[in-house]
């Protein structure tokens, strides 16, 4: 028993039945797309819409004739926000279900838990989440936005508007540490300085002393790299102290999980962000996507950056497979490296062959009235951070996740 039954689409029976069949027959019938996401537990805020995005993308692919004449079927597992289950279900997708491709993983820890397994078993892996960058592995495609892609547009814009002294608040884990470094890098490049960087473990919810410390340092602006539910209290306590009208703020993380809707207008207004996706992006592709989402799921409240990245990741894989005329791992990799692209809600997305990371449009937005109002669009930004450390064309056997030293 392995499949999340509720989510199996189109006539696919429970896995037990599928498992009973010889694998050759199965392979001819449908293409199996493994999906491994936290659709319950503390990360379901991210995982549930991502899961919906996978379903929607697969349906669109199938109604457009599938891939190489075959329909795509989803094999999904809910990892319940438990890292141990990632390893377990990852093994299962690769060895028992023998899927053709895996999309999923949310936290970096979850990606690192399944990446070696999928590589060993030669199962192509798509990680469609905003993350710290630096993964250099030919078996994986990372289609989410990475710190430099945000910071290179966000930091100069914010400094130009507000001033040179920056105070950084970051979540104390890989993503926060690395993003903080990039912010320092771009702040320096723009002629400013980072006066202080404070790191907070993900369960810290009391920022009283930090708010006092910030005032003591009197910066021109705050850069927030805070992550998750507990850190959300920072924005509340910041506003409760009346600071939101005194010191402006920019963030690389706020809004990725639709935080701008959870916070009130007063708490969120004026925060500057940089993302590839915004609901307020007025392109026909984006509005069409939101329309289809609304028809399918009733409302678009839950659509966020990660869901859209997942939606585009699945489509991008399908484009690659179509172009290759096969779902064999090496064929799909070659097609994507050779320039297969998908025109999605955020604009065109394609793969940078050296890093297997994505190139796409980045939009500078500002929170207004619980919405992300697009200020400016930077077209086709390459993954500049990973590019500094990773070259898969030269070292195709690399599997490291580099920590980028700036």
């Amino acid at each position, binding site marked *: *028993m392995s499949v999340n039954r509720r989510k199996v689409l189109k006539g696919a029976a429970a896995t037990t039945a599928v498992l009973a069949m010889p694998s050759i027959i199965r392979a001819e019938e449908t293409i199996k797309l493994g999906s491994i996401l936290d659709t319950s537990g503390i990360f379901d805020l991210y995982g549930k819409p991502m899961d919906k995005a996978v379903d929607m993308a697969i349906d669109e692919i199938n109604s457009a004739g599938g891939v190489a004449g075959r329909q795509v079927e989803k094999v999904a597992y*809910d990892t319940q926000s438990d*890292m141990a289950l990632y390893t377990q279900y990852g093994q299962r997708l690769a060895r028992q279900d023998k899927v053709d491709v895996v999309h999923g993983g949310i936290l970096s*820890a979850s990606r690192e*838990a399944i990446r070696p397994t999928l590589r060993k078993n030669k199962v192509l892996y798509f990680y469609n989440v905003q993350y710290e960058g630096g993964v250099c592995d030919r078996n994986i495609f990372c289609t989410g936005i990475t710190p430099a892609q945000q910071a290179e547009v966000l930091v100069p814009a914010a400094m130009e508007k507000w001033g040179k002294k920056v105070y950084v608040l970051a979540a104390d*884990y890989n993503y926060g*540490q690395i993003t903080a470094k990039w912010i320092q890098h771009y702040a320096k490049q723009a002629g400013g300085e980072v006066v202080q960087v404070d*790191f907070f*473990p993900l369960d810290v919810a009391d920022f009283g002393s930090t708010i006092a410390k910030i005032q003591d340092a009197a910066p021109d602006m705050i850069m927030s790299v805070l992550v998750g539910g507990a850190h959300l209290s920072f924005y509340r306590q910041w506003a409760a102290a009346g600071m939101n009208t005194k010191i402006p703020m920019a963030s690389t993380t706020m809004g990725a999980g639709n935080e701008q809707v959870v916070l009130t207008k007063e708490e969120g207004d004026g925060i500057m962000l940089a993302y590839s996706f915004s609901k307020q992006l007025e392109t026909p592709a984006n509005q069409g996507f939101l329309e289809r989402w609304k028809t399918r799921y009733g409302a678009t409240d839950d659509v966020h950056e990660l869901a859209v990245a997942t939606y585009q990741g699945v489509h991008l894989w399908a484009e690659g497979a179509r172009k290759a005329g096969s779902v064999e791992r090496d064929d799909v990799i070659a097609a994507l490296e050779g320039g297969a692209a998908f025109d999605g809600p955020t604009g065109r997305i394609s793969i940078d062959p050296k890093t297997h990371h994505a190139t796409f449009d980045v939009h500078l937005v500002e929170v207004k009235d619980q919405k992300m109002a697009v200020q400016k669009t930077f077209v086709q930004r390459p993954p500049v951070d990973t590019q500094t450390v990773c070259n898969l064309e030269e070292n195709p056997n690399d599997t490291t996740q580099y920590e980028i030293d700036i």
Partner: protein
Amino acid sequence: MLREASLSAIIGLILMLVAPFVFDDIYTLTVLVIYGLLALSLGFIWGFGGILCFGQAAFFGLGAYAFAIASINFAEPWAAALIALIVPALFAAALGAMLFYGRLSDVYLAVVTLVATLILFKFMNSTAGSAYKIGNARLGGYNGIPGFDTLTLPWDRSEYLIDESLYYFCALILLAAFLGLRWLLTAPFGRILVGIRENELRAELVGYDVRLIKTLAFAIGGMLAGMAGMLFANWAEIVTPNLFSLSQSAEVIIWVIVGGAGSLLGPIVGAFALGALKFFLGQQTLVDNLFVLGSLLVLAVLFLPRGIVPTIALLFKGRRKGIRKKGARRTSRRRVRHAR
């Protein structure tokens, strides 16, 4: 006694050999065996030493981390495995010495073990910076440590223990730990330990150094939990601070109490049953997993305070004696409290 022991050894061996054919998911089966070992470690110190440790996850996590860090640094997984036993055992001995030489008991002991786990959890979570390094191993904070070398066959360094071979290795260790503890409990040390559980004051008044014996038992429990952690690291191929989390500690306690703290088999059965239940619950979204586990714990405390295995054993022995025994145990607990 000896016959009974060899009988259970044979039964255990057969069960473990047969299990992979009945239950086709070897990967899940392996982790259930590892959980069984972890539950056994707590079952030993709680059921036979009377020490309710709220932080068994601390030793579990330490074992896993010690293995990962040592494996990265020495590139010699079997040496790393040895270190992964020594580190948690020493930590447990130090913590135990602090507890028992300080005469902490009951709820105070629970608090300190819980706090020790929390400290490790919070510390490990805040080690994302590049300054946190042991030798070549970055601690990695929230994301943990991936990519260390796992155990191989001792005579063939290219042959990794994965899938079946890892399963049989874990199963053998569980069986060995089970038999080892059985033997220990019939040996003077184990009998004294049970005597201490029953009446600490009396044990002291006949000349036993209760503090030392409890510390030793605690260290043995810590070592077994660390061994489970070491196996877990080999299974998952990544270690994260979640191994130290409160919910991990909670789960162990639930396994043990549902299975039955007063026996060695009970905790293993509890871990298997609830571990399997958790994986099955992961495949539906109607009921929340925690809701089911939590409710089970409440029901177990209310209606099955002795756990599954001892209750079944009692049913076999006959009802009347069982009831009498239950009453006796309660009076003995009260007396111990008075004596203090």
